[in-house]
């Protein structure tokens, strides 16, 4: 039975390692997605019609197909194009690319929310595009972009469980394996659910605190 404290203590390091993998894959995936997503959104906005169309199609495909299929394509299909990936790097790349597609949409909406006139004023004053993006557009979109960005991060944490299917040794994989070994699969899954639930709730609360702090710092548009 899973609830034998001896067993739990024995297995704690294993579970801890699984949790660690989930957390760092998640954070890396989110950060990578934010950076790549921002670059894609910026490229789409300023790169001309063709760039916009090509990147737009890629984004639509990544958002319109299941994450699991994308992971299978990368993991099982990769070797056929010379990309022999271990589960963890594969999971990281898959999660980051998926994450970037969604973040690019968040930043697209962010760019659209900055009034055109603010950008025109910067242009008339002789500011370069880079200066306008970094000093005007990004700060102005920060408040608008934060809530969807945090929600997206939470969604990505939940998606990361899918990586267990390609044997990435993250939390779901680890706990399910222990559960099967101990003939206490149901209890293990139940505890697994609770753990995710707690992390998600915590992130949600922290996110809201961050939103409040930020909205007090920045003044809303007059």
């Amino acid at each position, binding site marked *: 039975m899973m609830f034998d404290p001896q067993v739990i203590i024995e297995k704690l390091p294993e579970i801890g390692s699984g949790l660690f993998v989930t957390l760092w894959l998640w954070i890396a995936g989110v950060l990578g997605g934010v950076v790549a997503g921002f670059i894609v959104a910026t490229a789409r906005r300023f790169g001309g019609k063709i760039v916009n169309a090509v990147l737009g199609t890629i984004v*639509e*495909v990544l958002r*319109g*197909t*299941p*994450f*699991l*299929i*994308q992971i*299978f*394509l990368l993991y*099982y*299909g990769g070797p*056929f*194009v010379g990309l022999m990936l271990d589960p963890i790097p594969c999971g990281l790349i898959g999660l980051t690319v998926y994450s970037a597609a969604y973040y690019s949409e968040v930043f697209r909406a962010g760019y659209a929310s900055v009034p055109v006139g603010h950008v025109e004023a910067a242009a008339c004053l002789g500011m370069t595009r880079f200066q306008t993006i970094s000093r005007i557009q990004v700060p102005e979109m920060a408040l608008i972009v934060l809530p969807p960005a945090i929600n997206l991060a939470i969604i990505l*944490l*939940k*998606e*990361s*469980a*899918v990586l*267990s*299917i390609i044997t990435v040794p993250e939390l*779901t994989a680890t706990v*399910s394996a222990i559960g099967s070994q101990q003939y206490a*699969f*149901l209890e293990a*899954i*139940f505890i*697994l*659910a609770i753990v*995710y*639930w707690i992390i*998600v*709730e915590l992130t949600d609360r922290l996110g809201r605190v961050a939103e409040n702090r930020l909205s007090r710092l920045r003044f809303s548009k007059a």
Partner: protein
Amino acid sequence: MTPKLFTLLLEAALSTLGISLVSIAIGFVIAMLLSAALLSGKLIYILPARLFISFFRGVPLLVQLLLIYTLLPVIGINVPGIVAAIVGLSLCTAAYQAENLRGGFASVPPGLIEAADVAGFTGAQTFIRIRAPIALRLTFPALVNEAIMILKSSSLVSVVGIIEITKMAQDLASSTYQPIPIFASAALIYFVINSAIALLGRYAERSLKGASA
């Protein structure tokens, strides 16, 4: 990639569509019940509803499916795997749909509710005749989005052995040693279905807008 293989995937797509549709429908009913509970004003209904929504939005769908799939036999409910899968999907989408509806219900102009109150409507009547239709119209785009989400999430039921597009693709890929064309075809089928739903959704939204003006 042969036409024969593609046909197999298309047949599996029917399964995907069937599972998704049933789950969305059941999920919708549950979501409306949850919304009614949240608006009832009575803590005894509100708290369990909140707990339900929080749990099924806070736990990964994969874990939920494993949970339901393992739990049902243990508590004596012996159903075919596909039923367990649909139960799992329905509960999950119910929570998300309820969350979408929450915003819609909050946007119902209070004046309309007061008017119903004054006219003698009971809580249930106000809910059915006033609040629900308005909330649904407002949250329609979010509901279309959720439909697309369920369609993608249905790929996870492959994990508990249900035959739909993803499971079929997995089996075909391992037997033909051609993962790229097969998974790419599977992706294409999902993409086409989702794009169709999005288009239909936009079309429906436009006709809804016309009606409510």
